[in-house]
């Protein structure tokens, strides 16, 4: 019984403790990946599209650390340079989702009534599609381009982010400081930008980091299916798609970009999860 009680005491949220080691590690890994992607032009041993026709599909060696692909291009260099596109795609998609969804969620949560009803039912329709199908529907009518793919992913994430923004806003609206601001007769813009948004922000950051991880995965799937980044660009999803045909002879073509992508996504989602626990320990318990 005694240890049960101590267990319960431990659950009581203690704010502002130090970041857990897992989060610091994840942040370190992510920082390294971002740095490597930014400097890939100088770090990569070969240009992404340099072909060595005589050394097609050769295994890892001192010259080609991760082997070569079917055109004799260096897999390691391409993985390094491919990080740029994947990260950029994830970033653009997340930014678009947040820019569209946060105002929608704020408006729905602030106005309530028919605005809320209309927004949420509209978003329900979007959410009734499985996300990959909805992205494919959008992309089917657009010319193929990586940035349009990112935009489509961003649009598909809008309902998810807007729901979070709305529910947090709804919760805040009944808090004393908002009621007080209303009582003081503050302007609408003051309440929205000075009172609501700063309190909404932590939740948006957490949701955004999780969406970033999803966006990288979805972007990779789309490139893999042939609707995202197009050859001969270096991109992880595209490299994996290419590797499918050579999996018997050149497994390194799949393993190296696959591990790079997995590491990135694991780091981002660990970071998001850690941030969530740090900002809101009570909610993270369940």
């Amino acid at each position, binding site marked *: 019984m005694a240890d*049960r009680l101590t*267990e*319960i005491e431990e659950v009581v949220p203690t704010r502002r403790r130090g970041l857990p080691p897992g989060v610091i590690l994840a942040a370190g890994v992510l920082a390294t990946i971002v740095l490597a992607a930014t400097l890939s032009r100088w770090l990569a041993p070969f240009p992404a599209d340099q072909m060595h026709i005589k050394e097609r599909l050769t295994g890892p060696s001192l010259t080609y650390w991760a082997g070569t692909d079917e055109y004799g291009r260096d897999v390691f260099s391409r993985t390094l340079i491919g990080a740029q596109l994947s990260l950029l795609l994830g970033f653009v998609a997340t930014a678009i989702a947040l820019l569209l969804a946060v105002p929608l969620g704020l408006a729905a949560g602030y106005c309530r009534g028919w605005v809320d009803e209309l927004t949420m039912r509209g978003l*329900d*329709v979007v959410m*009734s*599609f*499985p*996300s*990959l*199908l909805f992205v*494919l*529907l*959008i*992309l*089917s*009518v657009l010319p193929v381009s990586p940035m349009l793919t990112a935009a489509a992913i961003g649009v598909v994430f809008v309902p998810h982010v807007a729901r979070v923004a709305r529910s947090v806003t709804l919760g805040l609206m009944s808090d004393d400081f908002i009621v007080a601001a209303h009582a003081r007769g503050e302007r609408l813009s003051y309440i929205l930008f000075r009172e609501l948004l700063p309190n909404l922000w932590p939740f948006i950051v957490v949701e955004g980091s999780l969406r970033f*991880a999803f966006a990288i*995965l*979805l972007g*990779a*799937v789309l490139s*893999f*299916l*042939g*609707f995202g980044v197009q050859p001969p660009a270096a991109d992880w999803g595209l490299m*994996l798609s290419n*590797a*499918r045909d050579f*999996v*018997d002879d050149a*497994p390194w073509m*799949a*393993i190296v970009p*696959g591990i790079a*992508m*997995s590491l990135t*996504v*694991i780091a981002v*989602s*660990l970071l998001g999860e850690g941030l969530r626990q740090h900002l809101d320990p009570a909610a993270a*318990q*369940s």
Partner: protein
Amino acid sequence: MIYVAKRLGYIAAILVAMSLLVFLVTHALPENTAGVILGEYATPETRAALEHKLGLDLPISVQYLRWAAGFLHGDFGQSVILEQPITPILWPALGRSALIAIPTLLLVSVVGISIGVAAAVQHDRTFDRIATISTYVAVSVPEFFWGLLFILVFSSYFKWLPTSGAASLGDGVWPMLSHLILPVATLTFGLQAHVSRMTRSSTVEALRSDYVRAARARGMAERTVILRHALRNAMLPTITVLAQDLGFLIGGIVAVETVFAYPGIGRLLVYSISRHDLPLMEAVILVVTAIYCIANLAADLLYGWFNPRIRYGRSLD
């Protein structure tokens, strides 16, 4: 019953909204079906003639009603690229996908819940730690990469299983099964992690609750406590996750069918989009989405069965 009727009405409304969306999006294209058939060198006259023949010169509302009416009769129209009716192509492909989807869903539930409960019981001990870490890895790696790794190990290295295609029951039981094992394993591997993670945390929560303590105090066997008291209550969030997983499963099937060159509905979709076969694409998207909506309704009803308190409640977020 009223609740079910209400939900059905809601689903019908969503489906109408979706069919409108799909129809309008695809008809917003400058490139219409006639253009796809004739190619880029068609003269305006032949194009106009074909548009007239296909009814593409009618007002868009009439076109929509025709299309939707056909849909309700199970007639999905004509595929442009394959030059045959869509209905006899679509159902067999859907059936082959169901052969992957249904076993996956069953396995995901069984494996995910078992791992989750085992981890919760072993809370903070070795098994729990290993389970938690592998959950992270399983969720963060896209299913097509797992698929490639599985091909690498089980097909290329051990040569136990075929890498691509499908076989029907007519070819024998093992050939059919052997084509299903890797796709199902790939999908299960990623999806069970969502379920086990949620089951673990909600079971941990339930095991801390007063009713579990009371059950233990009454001297109930630990097994009964876990299965009857903790698990039944812990199932609610798990069902929500399973419903969400349906969406991931559909996305996963599209990717996995491409990896394993499996002739299901996912590949049909990818094919139709890459070839700009609009009628085929519309049909596939609408049928899959309808199934998704109905499956979500089933999840909601299951939720009500596990939790009588909300049985007649509204939307279950």
